[in-house]
């Protein structure tokens, strides 16, 4: 171990010396100066080439940790690992963490892999590991990953999301800056086939929406509407498919939690009296059997089973992805605009934060080949590699056209595990330029797709300012403050969640109970919670200069 370390240090030193010497020589010895500074036989102890492929002179093995649930398929079967080995001489040995606890346990026992892809460990675990020096800083390695270096230099806002409290970068990001993806959270769908069968129009106001749902319910068992129809389906309290877009339709922005950032100020929407109206509307829907009790009891598995049932059970719902594009008997779902409400406020649809996953490729200190690892990250940022990483295998999910552009494809049959994308479980670099100029996506012209709906329906309903809480590194507050924030957040959120659930399901009356509710939130420490979040936000804005 020690001798390897010493060799590594010697390697770095000799690069520095050679580099220094070359800078001194520029102008006089032009030819030699053009050679890359790092063309030294001593990188990673002499194993790694500074440029060109393969990355390593002889085959090496790197262990890569990745969080990947068993229900998503077998990630070890993915073609990309074989592709990497063929191109780089680096054999990837995957260590799969099937849940967050396993990843947390790995961190607390410090039994690290060589490289960590997305690991889903808590922010605390990650920042503890960084504090301990267990994760290698990118400072010395970015020179081997010029594409990423340039990315951080040209995107200071995104770099801010990646920087840790000590001002350094500790990983390569998943950076897929697709406007239609990050700017819009859920689309709001209505069952077009049922509308057609009943001769109804897509609703544009909350009143019309209720009438349409009523019609779905009253015609249960007729035509293609099943007996046990769910007129409007929400997975209460959930960011995806939850009730938050109903608040937005009444002009109250709640991005998936009840907190927003307005002009740099952390603000609670849970105490915003405008929230009463959408709650009353939902209570009315519930009373009429248009929101069903399963909204409160279903878990994610049963929810997805219900919304993807063929033929559909659901009249209206919100969802990120397009539903039922491939149904044989025609298209069922149409995206619709958020509804106009009686309060006259402009309806909103939720957006996501334009963000990267800043540490989806971290190098642990026990990794004997940090330079080779950084070069691997560089390879993975290549546009065509990134397309494969983000969308899936070439020829199935995308193809290169004669004009040099990349066309996205919609596979019509079941895709094998080997050809699935890594998406945000790995890294990729596809910036806005790529999406605007290089990627051809038919969906923009296909009515009813997410891309089409973004442009034609949702764009104008996005809130003008970026109100979402930005992604922040852990470690901006002291441990005690952080623990206090966790405790307060937990009890506040539990109370908000239960109280609003009760109001919607007809237990208690929102008008009568509102004052007691806001008072209780104060009692539970809402102000202190806001203060702590504000402090964290302020600390983050000073990062990275």
């Amino acid at each position, binding site marked *: 171990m020690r001798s390897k370390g010493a060799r590594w240090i010697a390697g770095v030193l000799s690069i520095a010396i050679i580099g220094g010497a070359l800078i001194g020589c520029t102008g006089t010895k032009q030819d030699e100066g053009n050679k890359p500074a790092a063309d030294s036989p001593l990188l990673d102890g002499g194993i790694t080439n500074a440029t060109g492929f393969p990355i390593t002179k002889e085959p090496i093995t790197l262990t890569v940790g990745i969080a990947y649930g068993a229900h998503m398929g077998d990630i070890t079967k993915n073609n990309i690992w074989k592709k990497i080995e063929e191109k780089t001489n680096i054999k990837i040995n995957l260590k799969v963490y099937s849940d967050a606890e396993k990843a947390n346990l790995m961190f607390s*026992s410090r039994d690290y892999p060589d490289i960590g892809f997305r690991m889903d*460990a808590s922010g*605390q675990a990650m920042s503890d*590991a960084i504090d301990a020096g267990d994760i290698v800083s990118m400072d010395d390695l970015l020179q081997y990953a010029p594409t990423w270096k340039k990315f951080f230099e040209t995107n200071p806002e995104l770099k801010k999301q990646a920087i840790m409290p000590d001002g350094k970068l500790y990983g390569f990001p998943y950076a897929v800056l697709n406007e239609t993806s990050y700017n819009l959270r859920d689309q709001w769908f209505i069952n077009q086939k049922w509308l057609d069968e009943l001769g109804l129009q897509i609703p544009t106001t909350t009143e019309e929406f209720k009438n349409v749902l009523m019609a779905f319910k009253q015609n249960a068992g007729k035509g293609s509407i099943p007996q*046990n129809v769910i007129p409007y389906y929400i997975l209460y309290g959930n960011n995806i498919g939850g009730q938050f877009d109903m608040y937005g339709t009444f002009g109250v922005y709640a991005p998936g939690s009840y907190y927003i950032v307005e002009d740099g100020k952390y603000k609670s929407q849970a105490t915003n009296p405008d929230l009463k109206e959408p709650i009353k509307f939902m209570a009315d829907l519930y009373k009429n059997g248009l929101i*069903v009790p*399963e909204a409160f009891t279903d878990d994610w598995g049963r929810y997805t089973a219900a919304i993807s049932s063929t033929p559909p059970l659901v009249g209206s719902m919100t969802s990120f992805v397009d539903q039922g594009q491939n149904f044989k008997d025609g298209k069922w779902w149409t995206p619709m605009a958020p509804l106009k409400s009686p309060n006259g406020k402009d309806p909103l649809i939720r957006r996501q934060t334009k963000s990267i996953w800043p540490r989806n490729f971290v190098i642990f200190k026990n990794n004997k080949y940090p330079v080779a690892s950084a070069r691997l990250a560089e390879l993975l940022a290549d546009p065509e590699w990134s397309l494969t990483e983000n969308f899936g295998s070439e020829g199935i999910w995308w193809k290169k056209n004669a004009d040099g552009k990349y066309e996205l494809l919609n596979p019509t049959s079941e895709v094998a595990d080997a050809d699935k994308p890594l998406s945000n479980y790995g890294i990729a670099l596809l910036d806005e330029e790529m999406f605007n100029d290089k990627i051809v996506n038919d969906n923009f012209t296909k009515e009813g797709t997410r891309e089409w709906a973004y442009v034609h329906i949702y764009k104008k309903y996005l809130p003008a300012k970026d109100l979402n809480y930005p992604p922040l590194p852990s470690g901006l507050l002291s441990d005690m403050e952080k*623990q206090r924030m966790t405790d307060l957040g937990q009890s506040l959120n*539990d109370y908000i969640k239960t109280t609003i659930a009760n109001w919607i399901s007809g237990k208690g009356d929102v008008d009568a109970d509102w004052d007691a509710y806001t008072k209780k939130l104060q009692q539970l420490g809402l102000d202190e919670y806001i203060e702590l979040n504000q402090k964290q936000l302020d600390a983050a804005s000073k990062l990275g200069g």
Partner: protein
Amino acid sequence: MIDRVKENIGLYILVLPALLYVILFDYMPLYGVLIAFENFKPIKGIWGSDWIGLYHFERFMHLDIFWVLIKNTLSLSVYSLLAGFPIPIILALALNSVRSERFKKVVQTVTYAPHFISTVILVGMLNVFLSPRLGVVSQLLNSAGMMNGPLMILTNPDAFSHLYVWSGIWQGVGWGSIIYLAALSGVDPSLHEAAKVDGANKFHLAWHVDLPSIRPTIVTLLILSCGGILGIGFEKAFLMQNSLNLSASEVISTYVYKSGLLQSQYSFSAAVGLFNSAINLTLLLTVNKLAKKFGQSGIF
């Protein structure tokens, strides 16, 4: 002393593996409890982390939800104990009085079977059967005209403890009765014969002969269950939680999981665990003492 050891050397060797097991796996890891009093960081290790004393205990007790957690945890476990403790005894006594061996075997097998279902499956079954609109129970009640509309039992905080306890009894009653059946098989048949001569019927036999004979077993098990009173299982409560019954279903262990383990706050989790154990130990000692006071043999 040494002579006696030499004399029984075989027995000592026999007990050695078990003793080693207990020392290695139950006593050695005990030093880890230190992290409850520290701001534990994996990098600094158990010996090197900063000592912060009772901070995490105070933090836990000052939580707004603290008394709710205690109330929910206590009421679930006391209810489980009160309802769940006598039923296996009654089942065992009843089975013991059954004359038909065949019938007895069938009943035993049927009542054991649910024990082998995992908690996840059990809760899944509950959810499917009791689902508000489409569950079997809801459909049956609706078609029988006994109810109109959805069955709101899963979302009702008042119903949570009943569901929790009685599904637990359904699952555990057969298994729990095994130990009593074993104890009952040790009852001297001559006592039964003597009682029959005196004109005792089946009920008299169970009440005056069988029950007193297994009383030491009952007391021992009762003391042991009192020792676990705050240790209400995490899995089942967590799986049965939803946003409408949270006020009744949030117990200490589910809270610790959500705000402790998922956030890598190991010290806090350890502190709450230690708090639990301390209370359980106190209860166990108290009940043990009480049992002795009332003339029963305790566990030590």
